[in-house]
Every structure is written in C-alpha cells, then in structure tokens.
C-alpha cells in the first residue's frame, strides 16, 4: 500500500483541523480549539483505482510568536495551504509557508485551500486575488468545512497531483 504524507499548513484558526475532521471523520465543530504541535490522522483512499494511505499532519497554525518547524515537513509528499477567506493576512502567511516548504522539501504538489466559503459575505480576499494565483499556476479550491463543500475535492485534487509526480 502506498503511503503519502500530507501537511496541513496555514495561519492559526484558518480551519486546518476542521478540514481534517470533516474529511476523515465527517465531523464539524463551530468552537475554536487551537492545535499545539501536530495531530496525525490516517485516511485510506482509492484515487482512480490506486489505493493510498494518506497520513495527514495537522500542524499548529503559524502566528506572530511561533513559526512552523521544518522538521514537521520532512517526508511530505504534498501540502494543503489553508487560507481563511475572511482574514486577508492569512493569504500572506500561506505564501510564506509555501516558500519555506519549498526550501525544506522542494517543489512538492501544493493546493491553496480557501476555507470558510460559507462566510462569503465577510470575505476580505477578493476574486481578483484568486484569479492572480491561478494565473501563476497555483491550484486553488474553495471549501467550507462547516458545510462540507469542496473538502473532498481539495484532498482528492492534491492526491491526484501527488500520484502524477
């Protein structure tokens, strides 16, 4: 069985844990619980006939006091960079993390996940910023962990990219 490590990266409170909880356990909680260190989950999937064990690393959110340690990224085959659409600066954090990920593990497949799509009315990130990212060749997926929309697509898209590598 192929095993693939996926790192969930992003600023704090963007919804990394909620996305994993939704994807692996079909659960969602509105209450915010900060992640300390890393929580690891496993999800067996079958992508286009290929069985894969996904090892999901839900890594603590980066904030002004602590940066993500590069040791957590070791061995990663892909990465979901999670952005909170209602907080503009979380996109800057995602860009910083992308740069550091590439410095640590090279050019592994990456998907930008714009979460909290259910709060679209409060979004600070403009459609033009998403278009600009796509024009740079980035893969983006809009998700709502709360409403379970786009979550499966985000992970499946990343795994497909990883399997093409």
């Amino acid at each position, binding site marked *: 069985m192929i095993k693939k*490590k996926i790192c969930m990266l992003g600023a*704090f409170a963007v919804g990394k844990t909620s996305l994993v909880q939704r994807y692996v356990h079909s659960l969602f909680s509105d209450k915010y619980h*900060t992640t300390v*260190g890393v*929580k*690891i989950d*496993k999800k067996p999937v079958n992508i286009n006939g290929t069985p894969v064990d996904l090892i999901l690393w839900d890594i*603590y959110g980066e*904030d002004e006091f602590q940066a993500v340690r590069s040791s957590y990224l070791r*061995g990663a085959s892909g990465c979901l960079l999670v952005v909170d659409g209602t907080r503009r600066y979380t996109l800057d954090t995602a860009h910083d993390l992308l740069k550091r990920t590439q410095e640590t593990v090279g050019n592994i497949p990456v998907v930008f996940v714009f979460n909290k799509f259910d709060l679209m009315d409060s979004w600070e990130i403009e459609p033009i910023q998403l278009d600009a990212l796509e024009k740079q060749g980035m893969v983006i997926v809009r998700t709502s962990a709360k409403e379970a929309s786009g979550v499966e697509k985000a992970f499946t898209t990343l795994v497909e990219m990883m399997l093409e590598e």
Partner: protein
Amino acid sequence: MDYPAPITRYLLNRNARNRHLAYFHLDAHGHILTFGGTLDHYRIPKPQKGIPISDLLLFTEGMLPIDGSQMLLECVALPGGLTVDAHFFNADSYLWLLLLDAGEKAENQRLLQQKANELVLLRDAHARILDQHLGKGMTERLLRIDFQKGGERRVLSALFADIRGFTTFCEHRPPAQVVDMLNAYLSAMIQPVLGGGGIVDKIIGDAVMAVFGLLPSNLSAAGLAVDAAREILKSTGGLAVRRRKAGQPSLSVGVGIATGPVVLGVLGSRDRRTLSVTGHSVNLAARLESRASPGEILVDAATFDALKRDQTGFTARILDLKGLDSPTTAYGWRPHHEH
C-alpha cells in the same frame, strides 16, 4: 562539560520517570531492533522485533533516515490521546527514538495559545466591524494616522446628509419596509463618501456624518466634500427614480458642509473608545444640513471660498442659524435639472 555521575544519574532517572520514557532501537532502515520503557503509558502495543517503526507509530512515516545526528518532533499527539516529544538520534551506527510525555507542556502551551489566538481573532472581528462602518480597509488606514494622545487640531470639512421626511415616512409603516428604505438610502449616501476620500464618522438614524481631509489627498478637504455631496444627490436621485418606477415610495436628501479647524481625538472610557471630531464647523455643518432643501447642498463661506474655480452654480443666501449670534452667509447648490 562533564558532571559527577550521581548528578547525571539523578537527572536522567528523574526525567525518565516523570516523563515516562519509552524507547526504540532501530536499524538503518527504521526496523525495530529492541524497545523498552513505558510503552503501556502511551497505549502502544508491544511490537514484534523487525517490523518497520512506521507500522507502529504513524508519525515516523517518511521521517527516516534523519538528517544529521539528531532531530526533535515536539508535541506529537498520539492516537491514544497522549502527547509526546519524539527525539531521534544516531549513536554507534544505529538510530534511537525516545518518547517523552509532553502532556503537561502541551496543555500549558495550549491554554496560552488559545487565549492569545482568541484575542487576535477578536481584534480581527473588531477591525471588520469598523471596516463595515468606516469603509473597507479604512481601519488599517486610520491606524496609520498618528493622532496625538491629547487630541489635535486640524482643518477638515464636515458633511451631514439627511433623508428628508423620513420620520414622517416611518409612521404607520411596517418595520421591514422602514429598514429596507433606510438601508437603500444609507448605502446610496455612504458609498460616495467612501469613494470620495471621506470617512463616515457616524450614522445617526437617517443621517450620515462624514469628514474629509483626514486621509492623505492632493485635493482640498472642501473640494472632496462637495464632490461627494454631488455624488450623494446623484445616487439618491437615481435611487428615487428607480423606486418610483417600481411603485415604491421615494424621498430626497439634503446636505450641509462646513470647513474649519476641528479637534480630533480618541474619546471615551476604557471599555469603549471612538475617534471624535468636534468643533464649530461640525455644528455649523449640522445646522446647514437642517436648513438645506430636499435635493440641495448648503455650504458655509469657508467651504465656498476653498472651491475657488468650482463655485459655479452656487447661490448665496443669508441665514439665521440656531445657536449662532449673527446671520450666516451660506451657499446653496442644486443639480442642473432642478435649477
């Protein structure tokens, strides 16, 4: 540095005991050679020798071999619910993996981190509310303006815009219709202010108070305020036409503008602070607005003088305004089609 053996032994035993040391001795491929310590504490089943460590501990997948002589993964949550610090190190051509309980450390960190993150989220939420009130991105721009702590005096233009006849309109109307009407008109009044370089200072019922000259601009505060007022009349006029065509009630707006020195400051108590703009010209703008006819802009002499080449279409008149000792010269302007 070498320490006497009893000290080293004491510290090692204390650490190993208090933090429930468990260990794995691994070959170069990450297969388990030996193991020991408190595996039960971590609810890790005793493994068969020779199996890959990644079959037992998910977090080691893809981690081996390590770069350099040692590596630390802090606060890894195990499936059993406990949190460990995982130390990897090379010794004598073999790899060791030590697990030390990090539950207490993680919990202390979690409490602090949760509090700090919630505070930042609260700050973000407040900034969003302010943005909705003042205009998108305005909070950030305002934060960059350096106000002196004790307040300061600046020359600004104050603008008041009010929906004429709204109080009468509200009588005997269903609340939903009143709110719908108010939102439609306030949007048509606020957008020109934000688009014209102004700041919405207050929304008072059916009236908007805005200030111009606070944000950096090459244009005069008075010129910006008058341009915004013209846009307000244009957008509310367009709204009225659309509403009439749809068989809905429509109203007009009157605007007052005055220019002069005002005192800027952050006022309020510890629990609630707000940016405050006070001064004679603010009162004067409110008085002028109350005397403006529906669909009219009424400005004071200072605003009119500052317009210089853009004074066309204004008509002077003398007004007795409440609270002022002597009559005041004001200048009225209406859109062309109403002249």
